[in-house]
């Protein structure tokens, strides 16, 4: 009996139990069961990863049972274990386990904890089903499963209007991407007759020149499929044009943001591109699109991040931007780098989110950084963790010596982009410059966040803090803030309980050492033996980029730090003055490049106009318009006529039978006379 399916199925069973029997077993048992199941999954995932990496375990495939088997279309529930899925297993289960643990503290006062934990576990199951898929359909199943879980968790506080709106926005935006993904799967099946990854990759490599399209309009099949798949990835991973849902998704509880909207679900797109690396390598234009979209996202999200005041939105845009790094790394063919950045990012971004959650929790659900300040003294541990997360995010480190996790992966992405630009890959040079500029901006807005939140004097009021406390369920334990009132200038905050801090410490360890420890495996000299064909690794001569390329990220990072120190630490209020002086630019950034307004004007209003057209024109005029009450009246009328024909008299029935027999018989005679032509 293979043990690997337990990793996937344990969270499902826990979600099932906690979701359906929460009344019977109570909140505590529900939390224990879900957290325990994810802990089991985590342990087994670690074992799988270690076995593959160090103990010589072989990649393998466990097929559970057929899912769909109709007319040549087959899909099998399976657990595919190779390095790629093992990395994702570790990322997903570790972050999920820590988030479960953290939520025990964060959601301590929520009356619907059992539901929350059931959703979390369901999400974990879906994500694991996604990463262990062996064909596109199971991947799509997991893809939709995490979408549903994300929807449910963003709208977890369903009595809040904005949370519901955000949940619907996330779901609808993802539909756009999922539509592309579904088309990509169908196109793959249409062209290659299978949806199993290996079959598709093999077939694509066999006939790279295959064309697809309508009569006049022909494109290479592998390009079309790759582009469609990438559109799916754009939706799920919040890339430029389809990014609008991610910042709004911060309406969900903070642990959700950490798990789903930072570490795991949003990286599913990157995972998918890496899983399909064999396809993208055959499709230079699709790969170029990945690079360009990724580069633009990295830059765009970083600019917007500078002008946000909600602490979680800053981190959300930072996530968006980092996902852009991963995509352009994948786009230029450095799939190992993309996966490595995904891996390290999971640690430090989950750390940042959970740290932000700790701050929010400590300040009674205050999220606006303008009302913060001076939080360092009451929350020293959280402060230290956030600084570590920030250092990892901005990729601080000295080349050749040591650096935080982000240093290894991010710099590798930038260098790969440079090398690709030199080699003439589409978008390589753009990605390099976007990466460098975004690194500057990242450093700036990250330190801005730290300084606005933790340094200076407290800008909110203790009693105001309660006014923001709109979730009665999340009220902190009574009497705690009296302890801090006497501290001059410090915020009336309280440090979070150990059950919330412990996950931070674990993640911080990862944020410091994950890059240093794993760089040789993911992107270094052991990469070939580490990946073992799970993704495409470029084999060319390995030439080192020039020194200025290697040092550029560190230089801009330090520059961003200095700017942030100057504006937000030394000259309090300068930030607001700069914003006032550059009003149009600031408004442009604060309004996120006016994407929401644009989409509202084009899609929301457009869809409503179209709906009006169909409703008033199509439904009312045409369907209801044919006669009184139109089509439905016609159906009812014919139904009544048929009922009247049903007289109940045997001779009527017999008569009709004979008439019909004569009719058909007459037809037969007529056909016979024609010489057999019907």
């Amino acid at each position, binding site marked *: 009996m293979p043990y690997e399916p337990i990793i996937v199925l344990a969270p499902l069973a826990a979600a099932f139990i906690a979701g359906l029997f929460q009344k019977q077993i109570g909140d505590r048992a529900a939390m224990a069961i879900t957290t325990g199941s994810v802990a089991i999954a985590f342990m087994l995932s670690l074992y799988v990863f270690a076995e593959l990496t160090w103990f010589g375990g072989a990649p393998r495939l466990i097929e559970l*049972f*057929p*899912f*769909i*088997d*109709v*007319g040549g279309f*087959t899909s099998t529930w399976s657990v595919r274990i190779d390095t790629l899925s093992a990395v994702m297993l570790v990322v997903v289960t570790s972050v999920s386990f820590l988030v479960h643990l953290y939520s025990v503290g964060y959601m301590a006062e929520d009356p619907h904890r059992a539901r929350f934990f059931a959703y979390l576990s369901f999400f974990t199951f879906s994500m694991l089903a996604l990463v262990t898929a062996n064909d596109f359909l199971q991947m799509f199943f997991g893809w939709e499963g995490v979408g549903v879980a994300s929807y449910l968790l963003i709208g977890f506080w369903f009595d809040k209007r904005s949370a519901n709106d955000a949940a619907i926005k996330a779901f609808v935006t993802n539909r756009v991407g999922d539509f592309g993904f579904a088309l990509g799967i169908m196109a793959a099946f249409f062209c290659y007759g299978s949806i199993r990854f290996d079959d598709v990759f093999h077939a694509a490599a066999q006939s790279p020149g295959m064309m697809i399209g309508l009569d006049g309009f022909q494109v290479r099949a592998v390009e079309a499929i790759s582009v469609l798949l990438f559109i799916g990835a754009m939706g799920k991973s919040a890339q430029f044009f389809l990014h609008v849902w991610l910042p709004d998704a911060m309406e969900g509880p903070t642990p959700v943001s950490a798990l789903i909207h930072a570490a795991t679900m949003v990286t599913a797109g990157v995972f998918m591109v890496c899983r399909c690396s064999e396809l993208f390598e055959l499709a230079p234009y699709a790969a170029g699109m990945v690079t360009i979209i990724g580069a633009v996202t990295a830059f765009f999200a970083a600019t917007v991040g500078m002008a946000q005041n909600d602490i979680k939105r800053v981190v959300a845009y930072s996530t968006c931007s980092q996902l852009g790094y991963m995509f352009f790394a994948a786009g230029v063919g450095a799939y190992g780098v993309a996966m490595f950045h995904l891996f390290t990012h999971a640690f430090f971004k989950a750390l940042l989110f959970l740290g932000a959650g700790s701050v929010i929790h400590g300040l009674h659900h205050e999220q606006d950084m303008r009302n913060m300040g001076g939080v360092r003294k009451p929350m020293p541990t959280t402060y230290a963790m956030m600084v570590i997360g920030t250092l990892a995010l901005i990729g601080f480190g000295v080349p050749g010596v040591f650096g935080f996790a982000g240093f290894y992966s991010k710099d590798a992405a930038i260098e790969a982009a440079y090398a690709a630009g030199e080699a003439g890959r589409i978008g390589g040079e753009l990605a390099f410059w976007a990466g460098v500029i975004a690194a500057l901006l990242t450093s700036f807005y990250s330190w801005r966040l730290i300084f606005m939140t933790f340094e200076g004097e407290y800008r909110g009021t203790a009693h105001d803090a309660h006014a923001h406390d709109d979730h009665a369920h999340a009220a902190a334990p009574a009497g705690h803030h009296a302890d801090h009132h006497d501290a001059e200038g410090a915020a009336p905050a309280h440090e979070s309980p150990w059950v919330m801090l412990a996950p931070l410490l674990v993640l911080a360890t990862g944020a410091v050492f994950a890059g240093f420890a794993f760089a040789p495996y993911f992107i270094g000299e052991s990469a070939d033996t580490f990946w073992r064909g799970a993704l495409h690794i470029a084999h060319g001569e390995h030439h080192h980029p020039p020194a200025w390329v290697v040092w550029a990220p560190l230089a801009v990072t330090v520059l961003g730090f200095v700017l942030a120190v100057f504006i937000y630490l030394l000259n309090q209020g300068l930030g607001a003055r700069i914003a006032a002086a550059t009003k149009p630019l600031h408004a442009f950034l604060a309004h996120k490049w006016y994407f929401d307004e644009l989409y509202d004007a084009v899609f929301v209003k457009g869809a409503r106009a179209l709906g009006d057209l169909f409703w008033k024109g199509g439904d009312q005029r045409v369907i209801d318009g044919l006669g009184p009450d139109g089509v439905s009246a016609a*159906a*009812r009328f*014919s*139904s*009544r006529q*048929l*009922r009247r*024909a*049903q007289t*109940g008299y*045997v001779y*009527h*029935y*017999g008569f*009709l*039978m*004979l008439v*019909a*027999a004569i009719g*058909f*018989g007459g*037809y*037969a*005679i007529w*056909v*016979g*006379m024609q*010489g*057999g032509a*019907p």
Partner: protein
Amino acid sequence: MIALDQPFLWNVHWAAPELILAGFALGAVVIGAWGKDKAAGFLSGLGAIAFATAGVLAFLWSPELPQYLFNGALVVDGFSGLAKAMLGLSAAATLLIGADYFAATRQARFEFPIMTGLAALGMFVMVSANDLITLYVGLELQSLAAYVMAAWRRDDVRSSEAGIKYFVLGAIASGLLLFGASYIYGFTGSVRFDAIAAAAPTSEVGLLFGLVLVICALAFKMSAAPFHMWTPDVYEGAPTPVTAFFAAAPKLAAIALLARVLYAPFDGLTEQWRQVIFALSALSMTIGSIAALMQTNLKRLMAYSSVANVGFALMALAAGGQQGAATAIVYMAIYLPTTIGIFALVLALRRGGLHVETIDDLAGLGARHPFAAALFTILLFSIAGIPPLAGFFGKLIVFRAAVDAGAVWLAVVGAICAVIAAAYYLRVLSAIWFKPPAEPVQQAGGAALATAAVASALIFPILVIGLGTLERWATLAASTSF
């Protein structure tokens, strides 16, 4: 070819399922003569076991190559095995869901399992028929038993009416059948299907005319429009377990028989008979869907629903060849548990001591008996063709068969009819879930409810997962038989 010089009883062991049924019917007469109506319960149980055994045996023990019995009068092959399995299980389910009803209405008489057994035997003979005489004998054996079953409640005027109507109209249909068969015999010189095929039928006027009349008679048996007029009246009048029986097994038997008549002997005339089947299919789907819209009686509603579903099965048959036969069988394999499950639920529910009859009787079921309501929901959604339930896949493969046969227009008609039909299935569901209950519904009849639960489990997820396997079986069976 069949060697006529074999002894008459050569190969008779292949008829074991039929012999089991006949043995049960004869033995039950003797037991009943001694035990009178007190034996009804025992005989029902015994009958259910015998029918299920016969069916499963026919399937598991079906020969790889067609085997001919009684000098070629019967043929046993994979196709008949698959059909018999479904027939046997349906007949067994009828006895299970009916036991409680007959006990409650004091109608439990020992003849009922015997009649069911004879009808089942008739149907087994039908699906194995290899000449026109066997066809007629099987059909009449099934029909005569069915007439009696329809009139089971002798003291009830509607039941008696149902029986006499069914009998008179059935007699007309039998007349058409014999008339048509005489033409076929006259123009080919044989009644055996393989000999008819060997006679290489051309589009002789007389031969076509005979074939069309045979099709008409079979259309009556499966209640395809415009030969469906008896269906609502008989379904409404007959006792509900009998209605459940009529709605399920005989349709499959008639469809399978039609496949046998059309495919092997009249392969050369496919283009000609296909038009007739198209017409029957389109009419059945349209009339079955539209006429049911205004029905308030559940049994009449299901009658029209069965007409529409036969239309879909005919659409598959029209595709012709192995794909047609396999698709029709798979469609019926999904239709049978659905319809039996719905009738089982109707039988399991009572209001004020009486069995539910109308849609309004089900009002408020969702609040009172969520389990039964959930089963209703699964079954009705399935028969309405909503994914991911089995009914959806049934319709899907039928449409595919129609499109492959070049009849895109028929698939379009079918899709429109499916939409219209969804309206009345949903009306039942809206009563179940959204209407306030006037008078509480009681749940009774554990066996019926259990049968409904098994049927629902078949619809989702067993048949959905097993659809590929079922299709393979059906295709394999069809490929050895046609």
